[in-house]
């Protein structure tokens, strides 16, 4: 029954080490190992690896399970406001502080490009609105602002005219984005409040306006035609939505700018 002369394959060695070898073959493998020290050494090293792995992580099983992972807690959370959101809020730290706060409502184990792009926009907004001397890279008055950003972002960009909200375009800058370069336009109001419009290419489904807020910053974002847009400003939902609607109308529906102000003329002739 047992053929001691049959050579033993490497597969069989693994099966042997993992205790899955049928009894009638085990003896043959052991005989083989006795006369093949190299294979015996390999098997010893695999066993040592398994031991090291168990030594390193095995004790986890004896730890007390944290409260948030008990089933009753998870069921309760789910009933109250959706455990996915809870998980996301907690797990947001996985990605690092920057990408976190917009992740609500989506499983945190898999932050998607929409979460990443909105958090990118907010991080940029918060960083640059505080700049006194260098809030932008290129001023609105410079003719190459839109052609340059359009070329880098890959679409014909326009900076909406937000004169109706007393917001004046300061200029823009180029930033790294989720799946390529991103453009950030900055606007300033009469009392110094600043809004930004962020745009980058995004392979995600079209969405309606979504509003999010944290601390004293609010943001409305939407996705259309493979591009994601985020408008950020002081936390004022109604105003942000109004600004976003006006911007959307000009950007997506190609409605001519309401006034022929500086921003309205800045229509790129380049890009594709």
């Amino acid at each position, binding site marked *: 029954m047992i053929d001691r002369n049959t050579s033993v394959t490497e597969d069989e060695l693994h099966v042997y080490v993992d205790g899955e070898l049928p009894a009638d073959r085990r003896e043959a493998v052991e005989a083989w190992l006795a006369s093949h020290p190299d294979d015996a050494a390999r098997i010893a090293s695999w066993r040592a690896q398994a031991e090291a792995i*168990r030594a390193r992580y095995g004790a986890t099983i004896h*730890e007390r399970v944290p409260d948030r992972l008990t*089933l009753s807690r998870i*069921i309760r959370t789910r009933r109250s406001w959706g455990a996915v959101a809870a*998980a996301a809020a907690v797990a947001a730290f996985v990605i690092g502080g920057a990408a976190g706060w917009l992740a609500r409502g989506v499983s945190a184990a898999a932050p998607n490009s929409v979460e990443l792009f909105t958090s990118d926009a907010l991080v940029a907004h918060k960083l640059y609105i505080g700049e006194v001397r260098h809030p932008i890279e290129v001023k609105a008055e410079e003719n190459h602002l839109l052609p340059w950003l359009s070329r880098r972002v890959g679409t014909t960009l326009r900076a909406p005219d937000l004169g109706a909200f007393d917001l004046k375009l300061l200029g823009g800058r180029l930033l790294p984005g989720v799946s390529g370069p991103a453009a950030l336009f900055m606007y300033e109001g009469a009392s110094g409040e600043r809004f930004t419009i962020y745009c980058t290419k995004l392979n995600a489904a079209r969405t309606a306006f979504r509003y999010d807020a944290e601390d004293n910053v609010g943001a409305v974002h939407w996705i259309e035609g493979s591009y994601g847009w985020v408008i950020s400003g002081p936390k004022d939902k109604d105003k942000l939505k109004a600004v976003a609607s006006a911007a959307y109308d000009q950007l997506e529906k190609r409605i001519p700018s309401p006034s022929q102000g500086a921003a309205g003329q800045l229509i790129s002739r380049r890009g594709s």
Partner: protein
Amino acid sequence: MGTFHQDVEAAIPALRRYARALTRDAETADDLVQDSLVRALRSEHLFHGGDVRSWLYTILTNLNRNRLRSHARRPMLMPLEDNDAPDASGPEAGGRDIERALALLVDEQRTALLLVVLEGLSYREVAEVQGVPIGTVMSRLARARMQIKTYLDGERPALRRIK
């Protein structure tokens, strides 16, 4: 119903162990377990008998793969290795070595190896969790073991000598 919840509850400590080894980070691991549990409860109606534990391993494995995919774009944050630390021969040395060796593996290989040696799943169960034939599980195991051996045998001592 009751038994389903009991079975899930009973599997949590092992899920945490598996997640800890998969991610090598306690916080990330528990987040992953939490997401897996939420997912499991939400899809309870999709569970038609069988081994709850294997089913949970499958969910966690998939979530972890998604997590790694979405992170692939971003630089991974790895702890800085302190080569001068006196851990080269200390009791922690082996643990750190195996941790680094695991970190070098391709996700599928690491998953297969951990499910077998840490979680004690059979090849057949691992094949189901990973959704591949048993032969694929075996080649993943073989490659994982070979890579860890190469790392532990060679690279690490060489690195240690460099100051």
